[in-house]
C-alpha cells in the first residue's frame, strides 16, 4: 500500500493555508489578548471572616464579567484577586455583590499592580527561538552533510514546519481571543515553546528516514523515496503523538480550569506538529527539488527550437 504523500502536496499545502490564513488575519488585527501577567491590572485584597473557596470566588468574578480573575488565598482569611484594571465603579459594584453573597465579607483594599511578566520575557523568548532556528538549520545540515549543499534545504524545511505549527496555535488563540476574549498568559508562552520543540523533533525523524533511504537506494528519484519514507515512519509518528495526546487529553478533560487553555494549546500544537511532519515538511523538499530541476532544465539545455535548428 502506498499513499501518495508527495504527488498531492498542493492539497496538503492548501489545507495548511486554510488553517493558517484566518488565524494570521486575526493575529495581525491584534486578536491575541495578553492576560493580566503581561498587562497588569488591579489587585483586590479581600478580607473575610470565613473565606469562601477560590473556585467559588472565581465564579462570582466571572459573573461580574471578570473571568480573567486569578484568586490566591492568603493568611488571615484574606483572598487576593488579580483582575484587569477596575474603575472605582467596578470596585464598588464588586463590593456590593460580595457583601450580598458573603455575610462574613469585611471589606477590601484595591491597588494597581504592574505586569509580573515583562514584555522582555516574550521578546527574549522570540529572540531565543530565532537564534535556536539558525542553530537547528546548521545541526540538520551537519546531520545530512552527505548531501552537500542540499542538506541546508532540510534545515529550512524543518523551520518552515516549525513556523507552521506555531502559527496554527497562535492563530487559533487569536481567533479565540477575538471572539471569546480568551487571554494568553506565561503558560501559553511555554506551550508554544513546547510545540516548537516537538515539531522539530518530529520532522527530524522523518527526514532521517529519507536520508537513510536515499543512502540505501542511490540514484533513485526523490519523490518515491519520500513517499515510502513517510510510509515507514507513519506508525511511529502516529503512535508517538497518540501517547502525548492521551496525556494531554486527560489533562484537558479532568484537569482544573486553569489547565484548560494550556492543555488545549498543547493539544492543537502537537496534532499540528504531527500533520506538518507528515504532510508538509518533506513535501517542501520535493517542491524545492522540482523547482530546481525546472530551472536547471531551462538554463542547462537550450530550448527545443534552438536545439532543433542546430542539429
Amino acid at each position, binding site marked *: 500500500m502506498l499513499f501518495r504523500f508527495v504527488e498531492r502536496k498542493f492539497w496538503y499545502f492548501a489545507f495548511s493555508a486554510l488553517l493558517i490564513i484566518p488565524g494570521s488575519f486575526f493575529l495581525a488585527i491584534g486578536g491575541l489578548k495578553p492576560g493580566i501577567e503581561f498587562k497588569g491590572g488591579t489587585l483586590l485584597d479581600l478580607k473575610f471572616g470565613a473565606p469562601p473557596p477560590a*473556585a467559588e470566588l472565581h465564579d462570582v468574578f466571572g459573573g461580574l464579567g471578570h473571568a480573567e480573575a486569578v484568586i490566591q488565598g492568603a493568611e488571615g482569611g484574606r483572598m487576593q484577586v488579580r483582575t484587569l484594571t477596575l474603575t472605582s465603579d467596578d470596585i464598588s459594584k464588586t463590593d456590593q455583590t460580595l457583601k450580598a453573597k458573603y455575610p462574613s465579607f469585611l471589606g477590601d483594599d484595591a491597588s494597581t499592580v504592574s505586569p509580573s511578566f515583562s514584555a*522582555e*520575557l516574550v521578546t527574549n523568548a522570540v529572540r531565543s527561538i530565532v537564534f535556536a532556528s539558525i542553530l537547528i538549520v546548521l545541526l540538520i545540515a551537519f*546531520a545530512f552533510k552527505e548531501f552537500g549543499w542540499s542538506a541546508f534545504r532540510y534545515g529550512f524545511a524543518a523551520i518552515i514546519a516549525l513556523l507552521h505549527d506555531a502559527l496554527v496555535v497562535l492563530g487559533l488563540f487569536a481567533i479565540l481571543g477575538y471572539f471569546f476574549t480568551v487571554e494568553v498568559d506565561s503558560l501559553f508562552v511555554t506551550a508554544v515553546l513546547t510545540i516548537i520543540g516537538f515539531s522539530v*523533533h518530529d520532522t527530524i*525523524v522523518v527526514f532521517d528516514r529519507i536520508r537513510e533511504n536515499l543512502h540505501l537506494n542511490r540514484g533513485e528519484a526523490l519523490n518515491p523515496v519520500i513517499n515510502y519514507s513517510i510510509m515507514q515512519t507513519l506508525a511511529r509518528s502516529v503512535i508517538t503523538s497518540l501517547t*502525548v495526546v492521551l*496525556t494531554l487529553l486527560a489533562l484537558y478533560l*479532568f484537569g482544573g480550569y*486553569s489547565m484548560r487553555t494550556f492543555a488545549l494549546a498543547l493539544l492543537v500544537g502537537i496534532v499540528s506538529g504531527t500533520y506538518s511532519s507528515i504532510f508538509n515538511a518533506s513535501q517542501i523538499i520535493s517542491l524545492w527539488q522540482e523547482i530546481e530541476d525546472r530551472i536547471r532544465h531551462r538554463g542547462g539545455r537550450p530550448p527545443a527550437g534552438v536545439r532543433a535548428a542546430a542539429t
Partner: protein
Amino acid sequence: MNRAWAWAIVVVAIVAVWVDIPKHQFPFPFDCPGVCYRLGGQSTFVEIKTHLGLDLQGGTQLILQLHPERVPGGTTTSIDQLNNQARVVIDRRINSLGVSEPVIESLGADKILLQLPGVSDLAEAQRIATQQAFLEIKVPDLDASGNPTGTYHSLTPPLTGANLKPTFVEFSGANNAPVVHFEFGPPDDQRWVQLSKDFLNKPVQINLDGKEISAPRINQVFTSGSGIIEGGFTTKTAKELSTLLNSGALPVPLEVVQSSRVEPTLGQDSVRRSMVAGAIGLLLVALFMILYYRLPGVIAVIALLFYTALTYAIFRLIPVTLTLAGVAGFILSIGMAVDANVLTFERLKEELRNGKTLRVALDEGRRRAFPSILYSNLATILTALILFNFGTGTVKGFALTLIVGVVVSFFTAVFVTQLLLHAAIEYASLRRRRLWGVEERPADGRDGRAAASVTA
C-alpha cells in the same frame, strides 16, 4: 561489559529511588533529611525536597514599602522609576540564588509585592529583598602629623560599588577564611590604585549600607583595581554579600510592611485534579505500549519508570522549582522518551519481518534508529539551552526541566531499554516471536522457537 553497565544502572536506580522518597515521613536510622557528610571539622548538610513553584504550592509574600525620603542626600528620580529599578535589582538577586521563579510586581507606585515559592527561610528572604548593598570605600582622617585619627570620610565623588565587576568568594589567609574578591571597573580602578598610593600603610574603611565591615591596612601599592573584603564571613554570608554586590545596590531603602503565607495561584483543587489527570494519562500510555508492542512494551514501561524516578531525583537534587510550565516540559520529555522507544521498536519489528533473527534485529534496530534519536534530541536540547541562557522567569524554569528530561530520556532509551531487551533474549521462553509483536512465520512455523534459539 554489559554486566558492568547493568550493575551501574541498578545502582543509579537505587540511588534515584532513595532520593525520591520523602525522608521526613520515615523514621530514618539517622536524623538527616538529605545528604549529610562530615570531613574533619567541616560538615555539610543539604536537605533534599521537591521545590514546588508559587502556582502549585504557594509561598511567602512580602510587601515592601519604598522610602525615597530616606535616600541619603535625597533623590530626584521619580518614584515610578525607583520602583522599576528596585524591582530589577530584587529580580536579579533572587535569580542568582537559583531558579525559583518569584513574582515581583509594583503595588501602586510606592510598594512592591514580592512572592517567593515555599517558606524556606523568611529571614533570608527579607534580608535579600531589603538590604541595600550600598558599598563605599572611605579614607582615614589624618591629624597634623599625618597619622590616622580613627575616623573616616568619603572621597569626592564617593568611591562606591556602582562600578564593580562581578565579585566572587575566595578563601585566603592562614585559616582559609572566606573573603569576597572584588574588582573596580574603569575609571574607578585608577582611583583605587591612586588611593593605595595616597594612603600607603594606613587603614581604609569598607562600608556596607553605612556600616563598617572591615578596615584593612594598605600594605603595598596596588597594581590593579581589585581587592578583597574580609569581615569574619562564613561561606554562606560571603556568598550572600557577593550576590548582593553583583546584583547592584537598591536605589532606595525598602521596608517590609507585611509578610504572609499565600496559597497557590492555581488552587489546591485544580492542582490535585491535574495531578490525577496526568497520572491517568501516563497509565493509558503504559497500557497502550504494552498492548501494542507486547514484551518490548513491558520493557519500555520499566524503562519509563526508571526514567521518571531518575528525572524526579535530579529535580530534587539541583533543585529545580517545579511549576506548571515545568510539568509541561516534563510531559514533553516523557513523550520524547516514549518516542525513542517507539523508534527502536518499529525498527526492530521491521527487521524481524525481514526475516532477521532476534539478536541481529535488535542490533540492527538500535543502529538504524540511533541517528534519528540522536539528532531529534540534540535539536531539542539546543533549543532548551538557548532558552535557558536568554530566558527569564517561567521560560528559564521550563527550559531547565526540558534539558534534564531530554538528557535522561536519551540515556534511558539508548542504554536501559537496550540492556533490558538484550537481557530478555537470554531466556528461551521470551524469544517467541508472538511476544515481540510479529506473527510466527509460516517458514519456521512449529520450529520458530528452536530456529531462533540456534541462531540467536
